[in-house]
């Protein structure tokens, strides 16, 4: 009885609501490709849940839902340049225009707004100007109130509002139920990627960007997630809902990596080829300014890197520890990508809770992760073809900001746990970390009997020595520099003995 009454009440409520209340967000067939899109607003995507194309009546419904606007949402697919990655990527809008045709009459509406903007130089204008931006993330898996929405479980993330007021249109816009065709024309900004970020981040070299017309009920979930915004560079908030960092600090830069290399025979002396494991990584710190303390605080941390080479019979786990002088808590999202692919390894992305210290196991069982059939080694033998290594990235949102001054200086503490020997290997001067390791809590300086370290950090234009080749043989200035550094020999790593190194360049390994 109660159930029946509820059903009657709900039915009555439904009948009393305006017809556009049933509108669902709908993915459109056309997309923005290579910086340009002419989107037919009637033409729905083949994967849409909508069984029919849109029409003027439906567009009028969306218009009324949004208070004389049409609102779109964009799935940004640009993880290719600058600090763009799966968790944050962007484009910038040069122009966006709605074009409505009513038989012989055409009305064009040109006002658009997004939640974010940035200051960008273009290929034709070197002075930075402010442009509205669209920011997104891959794998954001949006949850919408209705599972019938085309946005449910999708990566659509960037809202684009188009106002239809008289002052924003070429002439007053009639009721759209009479429109015979309608288009959204979008031109993206051709940013000068040679300048690095922010221009590289907001370029459109990848794509295409899918687009959907969004219902009123789906806007809040999209804006709550604000996928990718916190990790994007130079974001100028254009709405109350947008939370941004004040700055990003990149180590060593937004486009360079630390290359950490290991001799894994600790505590015994190795062969000094420094290729037992070679990993490239970089770290970005998202900062907000604490007005009261007049200091920067860290709110988020991102890292990206690649396996470059592995010249060892042993296998290892590789960690990145970012030391801090205080307790740090937050949530990390770890990504691990298949070689030369945007597809993640099974089990990723992986969420991990940070309690106390930032110390993430990033690579597990390196021998299995970078295997060449018939060989113990990868990218360290002279006659071996180069292979791609896995790519990793992680982002950490801290539960509460931590003073930048509490964090250790870069390059932080990238370390190795050798599975066969159970020893861990750090840069010289760091303490052990792994509970139960063979050298846990040992007072070690991670230098061998000859005073040489087991781990070294190089710039990313360094090449690993071939298997068994002493680094001093591969780089004849290295020892001189190490023992007596001067401006004459500080760029020693740019002058290898080419027959003694594996010529695997950053261009290759940072695919």
């Amino acid at each position, binding site marked *: 009885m109660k159930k029946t009454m509820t059903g009657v009440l709900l039915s009555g409520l439904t009948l009393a609501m305006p017809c556009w209340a049933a509108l669902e967000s709908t993915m459109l067939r056309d997309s923005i490709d290579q910086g340009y899109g002419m989107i037919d607003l009637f033409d729905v995507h083949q994967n849409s849940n909508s069984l029919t194309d849109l029409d003027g009546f439906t567009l009028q419904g969306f218009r009324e839902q949004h208070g004389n606007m049409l609102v779109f949402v964009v799935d940004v697919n640009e993880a290719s340049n600058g600090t763009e990655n799966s968790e944050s990527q962007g484009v910038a809008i040069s122009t966006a225009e709605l074009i409505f045709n009513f038989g012989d009459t055409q009305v064009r509406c040109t006002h658009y707004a997004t939640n974010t903007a940035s*200051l960008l130089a273009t290929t034709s204008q070197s*002075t*930075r100007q*402010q442009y509205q931006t669209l920011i997104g993330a891959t794998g954001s898996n949006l949850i919408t109130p209705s599972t019938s929405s085309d946005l449910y479980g999708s990566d659509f993330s960037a809202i684009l509002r188009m106002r239809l007021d008289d002052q924003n249109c070429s002439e007053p816009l009639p009721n759209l139920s009479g429109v015979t065709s309608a288009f959204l024309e979008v031109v993206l900004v051709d940013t000068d990627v*040679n*300048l*690095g*970020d*922010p221009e*590289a981040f907001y370029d459109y070299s990848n794509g295409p960007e899918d687009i959907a017309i969004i219902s009123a009920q789906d806007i809040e979930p999209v804006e709550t997630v604000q996928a990718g915004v916190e990790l994007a*560079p*130079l974001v*100028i908030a254009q709405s109350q809902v947008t939370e941004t*960092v*004040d*700055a*990003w*600090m*990149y*180590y*060593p*830069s*937004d*486009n*360079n990596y*630390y290359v950490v290399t290991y001799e894994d025979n600790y505590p015994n*002396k190795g*062969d*000094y080829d420094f290729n037992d494991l070679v990993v490239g990584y970089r770290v970005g710190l998202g*900062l907000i*300014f604490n007005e009261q303390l*007049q200091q*920067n605080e860290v709110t988020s941390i991102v890292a990206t890197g690649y396996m470059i080479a592995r010249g060892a019979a042993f296998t290892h786990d590789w960690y990145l520890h970012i030391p801090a002088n205080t307790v740090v808590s937050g949530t990390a999202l770890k990504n691990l990508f298949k070689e030369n692919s945007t597809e993640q390894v099974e089990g990723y992305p992986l969420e991990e809770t940070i309690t106390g210290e930032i110390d993430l196991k990033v690579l597990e069982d390196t021998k299995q992760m970078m295997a060449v059939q018939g060989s113990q080694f990868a990218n360290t033998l002279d006659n071996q073809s180069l292979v791609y290594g896995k790519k990793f990235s992680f982002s950490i949102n801290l539960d509460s900001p931590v003073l930048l001054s509490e964090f250790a*200086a*870069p*390059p932080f503490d990238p370390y190795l746990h050798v599975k066969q020997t159970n020893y861990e290997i750090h840069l*010289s*001067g760091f303490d052990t970390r792994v509970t139960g390791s063979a050298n846990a809590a040992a007072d070690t300086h991670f*230098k061998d009997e*000859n*005073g*040489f*370290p087991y781990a070294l*950090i*190089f*710039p990313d234009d360094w090449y690993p020595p071939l298997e068994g080749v*002493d*680094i*001093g*043989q591969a780089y004849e200035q*290295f*020892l*001189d520099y*190490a*023992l007596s*550094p001067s401006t004459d020999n*500080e*760029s020693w*790593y*740019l002058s290898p003995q080419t027959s003694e190194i594996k010529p695997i360049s950053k261009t290759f390994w940072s695919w």
Partner: protein
Amino acid sequence: MKIFSILLSALFIAGCGGGGDSSNETVSTQTSGSASVSTGTSAPQQNSKKLGDNSAPSNAEFTQFSAFLATLSDQTGEFESQNIYLKLYTDGGNTLYLGRYKPALPIQTHIPNHLTRVYVDIFSNDPSDTTITRELSL
């Protein structure tokens, strides 16, 4: 990690491009953690550059990067906008810092030892503000 701090140099400023007067600016920098400060007794064996044939003094550090601390005086007196941004970068546009400009706050970066210059752009969201670009010699 043992760090042997060395004050390498006061920063030399060479203003370039983008307008603005560099005569009243002050930029201070400090570098530390320079590669392998050697005071030890070991030396390479003659004719061999291999590590396996040599030994290193206990205080050698082998780092190829240096910390670089830049503090910029307020450059924005003539800016109309309150939203002022700074980009610190190396050759090729490799960004070290990108975000809001806070003149009082030093920016600590970590760059390869062989780099001798970094660059600063200071700009705002007001089109009437002229971008300030500076080259900083390390």
